[in-house]
C-alpha cells in the first residue's frame, strides 16, 4: 500500500464485544479495522475467538461511541466516592432471586 498515511483510505475502526459460554453479557475485548460490519465480524471471529472464547460476537463502529473526557474524571466520578451507602452490599439477597 502506497498511501498508508492517508487516513481517508484507511478502513474504519470497530469495537469488538464477545459473549463467553458462561457469560451473560457481551464484553469488550478489543478493536480492529475492517471495511464494513460483515467483514469486521469475520475478522473478530478469527482474531478474538480462536481459543473458544465466545459463542456470540458484536461489532460496533468505534465512531458511534461517545466517550467521557478523561479530563473530567474528577468532576464526574469523585463526588460518588464518599457515598458508599449507595452500594447494595448492606442487603442480604435471598437465594431464590438468583443472579443479579
Amino acid at each position: 500500500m502506497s498511501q498508508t498515511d492517508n487516513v481517508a483510505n484507511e478502513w474504519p475502526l470497530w469495537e469488538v464485544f464477545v459473549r463467553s459460554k458462561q457469560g451473560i453479557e457481551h464484553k469488550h475485548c478489543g478493536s480492529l479495522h475492517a471495511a464494513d460490519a460483515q467483514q469486521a465480524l469475520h475478522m473478530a471471529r478469527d482474531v478474538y475467538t480462536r481459543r473458544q472464547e465466545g459463542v456470540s460476537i458484536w461489532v460496533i463502529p468505534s465512531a458511534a461511541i461517545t466517550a467521557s473526557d478523561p479530563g473530567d474524571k474528577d468532576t464526574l466520578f469523585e463526588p460518588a466516592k464518599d457515598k458508599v451507602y449507595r452500594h447494595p452490599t448492606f442487603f442480604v439477597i435471598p437465594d431464590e432471586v438468583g443472579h443479579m
Partner: protein
Amino acid sequence: MNASSEFVLHLADNALILGQRNAEWCGHGPILEEDLALANNSLDLIGQARLLYQHVAQLRNNGSTEDSLAYFRDQQDFLNFTLLELPHTTALAPSARAERDYAVTITRNFLFSAYMLQVWEQLQHHADAQLAAIAAKSLKEVRYHFQHAVDWLVRFGDGTDESHAKAQAAVHFLMPYTQEFWSEWPVSQAIFGDVNTLRTAWHDLVHQVMAQAGLQLPTAVAYITQGHLGVHSEHMSYLLAEMQSLARQHPGATW
C-alpha cells in the same frame, strides 16, 4: 465397509498440501486479521490431514503413522490435486518466488472449499464410520473457509479496477486445474459413484459467486493435471523439501 486407503490418503494429502501452502502467509498476511485467518485455515486443514492420515495408517495396518505418511513419502506418492500445490502466484508472475498474490490464495480457497463442501456433505453419511465422523467435523470448518473466501472474492471482483483485474487473472489461471476434480479415477468413483451430482452442485455454486463478484469463467482447456495420480507440477518438490526437511534431519524428534 471402509473406504479405500488410497482415497483417504488423497483427502489427507489435499488437506496437508493446501494447509502447508496457506501457512506460508503466516507472518506475511496483507493485514494482521487476514494473517490470523489464513493461519486458522491452515490449522483446520492440517488437523483434518492428521485425522485422515491416522485413518489411513489404521486401514493399512502396515506400521505407517501420520508422521511417516506426511514426512517420509516422496512426491510421486502424494495424491493431492495439482491445484493445491501451486504457489500463490499466477502464470504472469516472473518466478515462483515473486511476491505472493492474495487473489490467488483466495480464489484457490474458494474453488477448493466449494468442492469440499460437496465432498464432506456426502462423506458424512459414508458407511466407514471413522471417515463419516471426520467428514462431519470437517464440514463445519470448510463452511467457514468457504464463507471467508467468498467474502473476499466478491470484494475483489466488485472492488477497484486493480482488485478486479487480479481476481480475474487468478480465476483464469486456476480454473483449468479444477478440471482434475472430475477426471475419471476409479478410486473416487468407488466412493461417489456418479461424480456428476457433485459436479453440478459445485458448478452452480461457483457460477453463483462468480456472478455476484462480476467475474468471468474461462472456457475449459484440453490438458488435465494429474496430481491425484502422483504426477505433480514443478512446484511440488520445493514444497515437500521445505515441509519435510526438518523431520528427515531429526527423525522422531519431539518437543
